[in-house]
């Protein structure tokens, strides 16, 4: 059996599990919407101010929501023994790890991208900025899942792993936040967002190539 088949089987299984536990997926989505909606309540309804910070707020909320969903990535497989069985398959770990991260992004990243324009409109972002926001999230959220997977793998089986994972992973999310929010800012101010988006794309390629190896090593440590 070849590797793409393994990834397909894994994706099917993960999506099926997500369908049967829709609550988990919706929790993350509602968290995203609520966090983003808190900001106008906190800073006041000044449209100019809201337009200025809209991109950044949506991005920070996406970061926090991604954080929240990381617990699901390996923890349940670890608890019920599925993770051991996956490690013991002949398939190289990087292959199925990539599959798991991809599934995680489909389940918890893609819904955020779909809802983001609605939040953007709330903040009064221009049409162009909305497009850039969606595109930057499209490039950025997979990076959140990829980098987050390292944290999730390292904190497996630890008490208070949820808090630890935020301390480990949030600092690593900073570049994604800077370039993601920067891209939206560029579109709003008319400076252009190409530079930010290309850097975000670069980060995505780099993360895609490197993180599965790091996750594999981290899982090996955690499983002992």
């Amino acid at each position: 059996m070849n590797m793409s088949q393994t990834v397909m089987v894994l994706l099917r299984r993960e999506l099926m599990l997500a369908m049967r536990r829709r609550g988990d997926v919706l929790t993350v989505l509602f968290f995203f919407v609520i966090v983003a909606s808190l900001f106008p309540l906190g800073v006041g309804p000044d449209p100019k101010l809201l337009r200025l910070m809209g991109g950044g707020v949506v991005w920070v909320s996406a970061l926090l929501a991604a954080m929240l969903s990381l617990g699901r990535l390996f923890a349940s497989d670890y608890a019920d023994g599925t993770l051991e069985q996956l490690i013991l398959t002949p398939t190289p770990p990087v292959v199925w790890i990539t599959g798991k991260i991809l599934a995680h992004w489909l389940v918890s990243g893609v819904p955020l991208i779909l809802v983001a324009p609605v939040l953007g409109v709330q903040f009064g972002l221009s049409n162009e900025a909305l497009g850039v926001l969606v595109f930057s999230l499209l490039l950025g959220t997979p990076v959140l899942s990829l980098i987050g997977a390292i944290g999730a793998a390292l904190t497996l089986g630890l008490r208070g792993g949820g808090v630890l994972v935020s301390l480990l992973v949030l600092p690593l999310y900073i570049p994604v936040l800077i370039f993601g929010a920067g891209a939206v800012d560029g579109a709003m101010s008319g400076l252009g967002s190409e530079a930010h988006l290309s850097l975000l794309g670069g980060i995505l390629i780099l993360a895609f190539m490197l993180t599965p190896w790091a996750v594999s090593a981290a899982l090996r440590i955690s499983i002992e």
Partner: protein
Amino acid sequence: MLEGKDLACVRGERTLFDHLNFTLHEGELLLVQGANGSGKTSLLRMLCGLMAPEFGEVLWRGKKIGAARESYHAEMAYFGHSPAVKEDLSAFENLDFACRLAGIPVKREEVKGALGHLGLGHCLNLPAKSLSQGQRRRVALSRLLLAKARLWILDEPLTALDQAALKLVQSLLGEHLRQGGMALLTTHQPVMIPGITPKILDLSA
């Protein structure tokens, strides 16, 4: 042939066992015995490659298992403490996905047959969360039927099983060994397999 050479296991400050040697040939059964906490599970995890030994090496057909990872994992089936059964999937889906992920091509009928063989024919499509502990372990054991592995490494396969299942597992083991398979297991229950005298590895000694 599976060989353990001069194996040692250290947990924290404590040495659980050291200078442990054994060989397991085709058609042989090795019973790992010892009190609770004597390192049985650690040994088994070491042998299947989930844990690195503190000292010594594990050889499969004369090669280190780390170096021959793919071929070793293709020929080995591990049954651990947790049955690796997903609560939200049905018994059928659990077994089907487990086999496909392990790279074993299976047909629907084979999966149903294996579950039927372990007495789960009537709850194929029930979500696993509605199954009892013993039934979940049966789902996990049915994987052994489909995996066609040469080497079975089974950690307490007999716990939480009823009398009928105990007999069934022992007859499965007998069948596997007669076909030239190898099995290594820990258990606190007596194992009776006609025509097979198990080797004993006692960790407390």
